[in-house]
């Protein structure tokens, strides 16, 4: 077995709880082939001893699906926000620096609270309302070519990487970030969802809405799902421009 001597060098930014100060702790984890960041963290959990050989608390993180569809394990890995599950050790430069997303409040160690993203989805009504007292029957059909690009937008897993990279998402700014804006485009493209599109436009025309975007276009560079976020934002810019003309001058 070749893996016995080889070690993975990790530098992890840790934090005891939401209010305590962050600090760094180094770990040397035994190497196996095909490991990812999650399996390296699992090794620490099994044997919580740091690089100095001192016993420590196991590192806390959040992960669910382990196949880059749930969005729970977002971390800043070697300076870039990405999913820990799809970050393969063999493809990373060592020492590997792992830190929690800085845009969100830290719960503990690498676990963050992404609640603000879910609040934004509620604010922009990122759903298709069909509940009622009787069966509404089948809705209008969706054209196949619309479905194809809408499917790309539906891959958003609320992972928060775009908010992390955005220079306009921070404590001084109310900006909701790129992800919920792209969801407005998605749900407005749905034939039944489109019946409520004006409500979604109004929501993104409020404080922290679409015009708070500064076009740095970092979001589209870091999105792990390759969602055309900047195209969504520009498209929505056109829609809200037309919407505001309509609401001031009257419908066409």
């Amino acid at each position: 077995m070749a893996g016995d001597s080889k070690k993975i060098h990790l530098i992890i930014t840790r934090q005891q709880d939401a209010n305590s100060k962050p600090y760094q702790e180094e770990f040397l984890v035994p190497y196996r082939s095909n490991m990812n960041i999650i399996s390296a963290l699992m090794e620490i959990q099994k044997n919580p001893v740091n690089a100095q050989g001192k016993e420590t608390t196991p590192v806390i993180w959040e992960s669910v699906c382990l196949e880059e569809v749930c969005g729970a394990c977002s971390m800043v890995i070697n300076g870039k926000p990405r999913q820990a599950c799809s970050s393969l050790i063999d493809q990373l430069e060592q020492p590997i620096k792992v830190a929690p997303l800085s845009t969100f409040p830290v719960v503990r160690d690498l676990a963050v609270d992404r609640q603000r993203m879910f609040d934004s989805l509620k604010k922009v009504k990122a759903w298709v309302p069909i509940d009622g007292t009787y069966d509404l029957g089948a809705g209008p059909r969706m054209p196949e070519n619309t479905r194809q690009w809408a499917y790309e937008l539906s891959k958003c897993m609320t992972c928060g990487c775009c908010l992390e990279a955005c220079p306009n998402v921070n404590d001084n700014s109310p900006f909701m970030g790129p992800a919920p804006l792209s969801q407005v485009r998605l749900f407005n493209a749905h034939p039944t969802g489109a019946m409520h599109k004006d409500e979604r436009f109004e929501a993104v025309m409020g404080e922290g809405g679409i015009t708070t975007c500064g076009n740095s276009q970092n979001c589209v560079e870091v999105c792990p799902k390759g969602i055309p976020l900047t195209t969504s934002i520009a498209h929505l810019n056109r829609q809200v421009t037309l919407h505001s003309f309509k609401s001031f001058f009257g419908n066409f």
Partner: protein
Amino acid sequence: MERGKNQHLYRKLHSLSGIIPVGVFLTVHLFVNYTATWGMDAYNTAAGVMVNLPFKIFLESFIIFIPLYFHAIYGMYIAFQSKNNVGSYGYSRNWKFFLQRLSGVITFIFVTWHIWETKVQVEFFDAEANFNLMANIVDNPVSLALYIVGIVAAVYHFANGIWTFLITWGITVSPKSQKFFAIITLGLFVVLSIIGVRAILAFA
């Protein structure tokens, strides 16, 4: 000012005012200055036309000063709201985002200083708006260097501002059109910079 639904209107107007009228005025201004490369008389004639336009106070207020300072002051608020991160994300668009804010701050300071040295002196301290007024200012090499920095910053801010304006107003949506106008606005930056710098060098 920022609260509530008016934010949307202010931001859209901020983007628009940078092009119309402020950017258009900047272009006209640089073109008038360029006549200095043809000599003192040519400049004094061209500047004389601008100075003797009718309803000048109205034109100056509504085409220059009110939109200019609305754009500048609201722009400061926007610039200092961002947390620049070109160190971690060195993508070219992110650099342009950072330079847009940096050039905005430089232009704000430069234009205010420039107005003090020219317009304020002419209106309140009996200076005459002609070739010699500028020639005396840029006689000092430090002033000349600051003018070149200020002009290039203003032109960059305008050219890149056209690119972001086209997105903010929903004109360029596809990545293809955004790339196309990135090249066009880069060309505009180069051309207007040459015009602006050649003009100021003509006074020195």
